[in-house]
């Protein structure tokens, strides 16, 4: 548990499952004055509208790190993906498998949105097998088109809009990931399950 200024606490835990458990517990029973909950890879930032107290820190320390209650179903999103990304061959080479086998694996995984944060609507999708954990590109691209599906480290992700980026691009989707006129605005939010379906 780390203090983070006079309005927030940063809880550090071991892994994504513990992050999900802490996030779920604080959504069910927020701290008094809780205004923001920011899950990440190994931390959950809890922002309050007041100075945190020792009681808040103690409550966070007591939170279960495995979710005892079955997680409420937050839904399944299916993304139609054309697997023609410029880095698919590179990813296949790193995995020592043919590209078709990489695509087959990617389309059988049920991913879970672990956390967001890179841009509005971006979700870090957890669930990749170790052999598809690939490093970021050594030189990031200055322009990655919206809808690009990429891999980096143990995550997959979809660029919600055009931006610079260093993920290895394996495909693209037409799905609109973020739209302020939609409720909810983000297609992907922490806890949502995601499947990639191959289209040509």
């Amino acid at each position, binding site marked *: 548990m*780390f*203090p*983070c*200024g*006079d*309005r*927030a606490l*940063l809880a550090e835990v071991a892994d994504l499952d513990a992050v999900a458990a802490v*996030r779920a517990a604080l959504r069910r029973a927020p701290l008094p004055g809780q*205004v*923001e*909950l*920011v*899950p*990440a*890879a*190994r*931390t*959950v*930032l809890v*922002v309050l509208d007041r100075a945190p107290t020792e009681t808040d820190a103690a409550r966070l320390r007591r939170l279960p790190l495995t979710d005892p209650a079955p997680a409420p179903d937050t839904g399944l999103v299916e993304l139609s993906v054309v697997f023609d990304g410029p880095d698919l061959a590179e990813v296949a080479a790193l995995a020592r498998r043919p590209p078709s086998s990489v695509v087959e694996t990617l389309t059988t995984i049920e991913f879970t949105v672990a*956390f*967001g*944060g*890179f*841009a*509005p*609507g*971006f979700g870090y999708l957890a669930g990749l097998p170790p052999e598809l954990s690939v490093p970021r590109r050594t030189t990031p691209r200055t322009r990655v088109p919206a809808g690009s599906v990429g891999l980096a480290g143990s995550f997959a992700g979809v660029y*919600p809009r055009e931006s610079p980026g260093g993920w290895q691009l394996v495909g693209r989707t037409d799905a609109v990931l*973020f739209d*302020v006129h939609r409720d*909810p*605005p*983000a297609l*992907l*939010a*922490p806890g949502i399950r995601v499947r990639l379906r191959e289209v040509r």
Partner: protein
Amino acid sequence: MLTVLAPGPLATVQDLGRPGWASIGVTTSGAADRAAHGLANRLVGNEPAAATVEVTAGGLRVRAGRTLLVAVTGAPVPVSVDGRAAPFDAPLTLSAGAELSLGRPAIGLRSYLAVRGGVDVPPVLGSRSTDSLSGLGPPRLTAGDRLPVGTLSAGEPFVDVAPVRPLPARPVLRVLPGPRRDWLAQEAWALLTSQEWSVTSDSDRVGLRLAGPRLDRARHDELPSEGLVPGAVQVPPDGAPVLFLSDHPVTGGYPVLAVVTTPDLSLAAQLRPGDSFRFRAVR
């Protein structure tokens, strides 16, 4: 209705931002100097949720479409109405057709123009703020923009002029230790809180890039990205700290050495490129 005749170097609509959306990657945004924004609203009897115009480095000129009660606060600028000097930090009536003009601040960076009823551009995710990082909210103001005036006023304003402490010539920002102090070399905290820092030109509503002594890392492994707060002082690999303001990214992947206290964020938002200041440890 207020018609923008000239926006100055940068003018945006701002309110208290969009808290609650960070988990889908949307930062809070909102007025960089919350104290000055709040004062401007109070001077014209607005509700706290009303939006104002955040004017960066002065230069804004607007025309009133009807009789309007307005107030200008924040970085002190010469205010004039139809060429005649008008008060600052005080409510001010514009008659229909009158032109309000803001000069350049001699000190400070951001001034706030409140209009009774609030600037009523369409809200996006519950806020009228321009988020310069993700492009949410209205675009920056340009000449010819017509800003509707809303109905977010509470009681009658009852203050003639607000006593406001002048911006300090030698600013000091109070800081608390950040969550990753141990990722920096042992002397980093002492350097941060004892040396003078200056604001570089590579600074905006996202954050201030600082120049001063180089802050070295103690750990060189990669920190997984984690949630950020406004006021966080993050140290990238080049050793030059960044002090985040309203439009900070939701998460960051470099260690946060210190966090500026909430009351002092308003002062941080008034620092301009070239300004020198110090951090003072409060714990």
